């Protein structure tokens, strides 16, 4: 137990100390400046100034509005097909080395991956998952 945390601090984390100091300065400065304007500035509120959005429409109703459940399906499908790119980045970055080591195999592997996703896409399309009914 005890050997872990100290070693971590002494070697790997040491490089982050300047960043930590910068973070402290940033928090202090931004806090100071926002609060200074509130302290020193004159404050003369009226009805229009106090409204939520000064030169826009009057806000009507609640922010917690009900919206169609169909959005969830679209959002889910978006995430599903968006995530595939996450797998492609490391593959693309390493592709040169992979090509040297394994020849065409990594390329075919990625084709298979995309093919599986394509089957999923056809499934979603034919099942009407992309239709706004």
């Amino acid at each position, binding site marked *: 137990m005890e050997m872990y945390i100290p070693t971590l601090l002494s070697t790997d984390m040491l490089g982050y100390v300047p960043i930590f100091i910068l973070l402290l300065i940033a928090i202090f400065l931004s806090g100071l400046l926002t609060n200074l304007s509130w302290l020193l500035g004159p404050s003369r509120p009226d009805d229009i100034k106090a409204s939520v959005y000064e030169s826009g429409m009057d806000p009507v109703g609640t922010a917690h509005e009900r919206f169609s459940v169909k959005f969830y399906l679209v959002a889910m499908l978006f995430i599903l097909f968006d995530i595939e790119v996450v797998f492609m980045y490391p593959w693309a970055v390493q592709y040169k080395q992979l090509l040297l080591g394994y020849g065409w195999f990594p390329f075919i592997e990625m084709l298979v991956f995309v093919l599986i996703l394509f089957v*999923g896409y*056809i499934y979603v399309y034919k*099942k009407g998952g992309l239709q706004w009914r």
Partner: protein
Amino acid sequence: MEFSLQNLSASTQQSIPLLILLLTGLVLMMLDSFKQRSSLPWVTAAGLAISAIAAWVMGPDSSQITFFGMMETGGIAPLVHVFICISGLCTIFFLNDYLSRQGRLIDDVYALIVFSVLGMILMANANDLIMVFIGLETMSMCLYIFAALFKTETRSNEAGLKYFLLGSFASAFLLLGISIIYGVTGTTNLNVLATADNINVLQSNQALFFTAGGLILIGFLFKVAAFPFHSWTPDVYTGTPTPLAGFMATGSKLAAFVILGVIIHKLELVSAPENGKFVTVLGLAALFTMIYGNIVAARQQNMKRMLAYSSIAHTGYVLLGLCAATATDYIGFKAIIFYMFIYTLMNIGAFGMVGMAERQFEDTDMENWRGLGKKAPYFAAALAVFLFSLAGIPPLAGFMGKYHVFITAIRADLVLLATVGILTSVIGAYYYIRVIVLMFFDSQDKSPEFNTNFSLVPVTGIVLLVALIVLFGIFPSLILNPIDQAFSVSDLVSTAVSAHP
């Protein structure tokens, strides 16, 4: 792990049975999309059968780690692959008939069965904790959908939501355990974990190690519905389409028990000088699971709930076997795999038959079964065979399964646990035989009209399963010999023996 071309080509060759399953799943999705619904059950069955045969034929003679250390493809892996595929195949017999009786032709379910079988195999034959988790989630996602399959029914929704929330929670426990193991040793590979360096690191971090082991254990005890983590089982099985509930109770548990056995084995290797802690925990879980499952099942008035609680009880027996196997030389691991295979046959049979009668009775209340022996003698007799086998009555396979588990426990000096197991299985005999008494020996005839015109496929399934249960009850060596052979080439037993001198 060697990242070489040899490893790659061996992995490619060994991946063929798994790729067959993947391909079957994709083909099923396409057939479903293009409305080819009549071919779906057949394609599913063919895919599972071909994959099982391929795994059996192509399985290497010796224990082999492939896929860059991710998977174990030799040893017991082909056998487990075959057994899990059989669990899927048995379900297919009853599924189409059940769905059409319920008037809900949900065709997506076939692709999901194949994908969940794939997940189970990936989990059971994994050699890396990350692979275990991916397999577990692949399997679980499909099972969550099975629970919520009839999306317009309240009960099904309840089952799906309960299973999903509790299941995700349990998965989180498992993942936390894995991440602690990774944090301490820097590896998730099960073989690398049991090397000298990592054992030293883990032993100098006892607190973290046992926390991690406990968390992993909790994740799996939930999946197999063992005592403190069983509460989801009855509600989920009641809401799930009946044949799929049978599939849930067998295939997924078989896979979970295999990988749990392997993981516990590694953890025991790590805690070697003062081992026995995990055995104690498993033993306690087994004790309470057997007692709780059997006693509560005896009070049930609903067939599906009774079978759900009885599946908790059977989990207890298998945990007893696992405990015994871990405490001794791991030879007892054979008994678990044998038991789970037999349990697969009889439990899917029982759930399938309840599903066949369900539509005619409107519900699964046990009263409906009263006097069924006169109206549908053959149907009732087949159900009686499954129930007798579940109860462990001698000429049937269920008896051989229980015999091997209890004998393993006695050989491991777990006499108290074995005694409790035998006593609670007497309670088990009570509630199984109560249904048989209701069917055959009850003069009051309250059951509604019963139409015995069943379609050919489920009837074939019943005949086949009954025949297999009788056959394996009389000649258990037909299954025990392949299991023996698989274990003789597995390095699981040999390393276990050397670790416990």
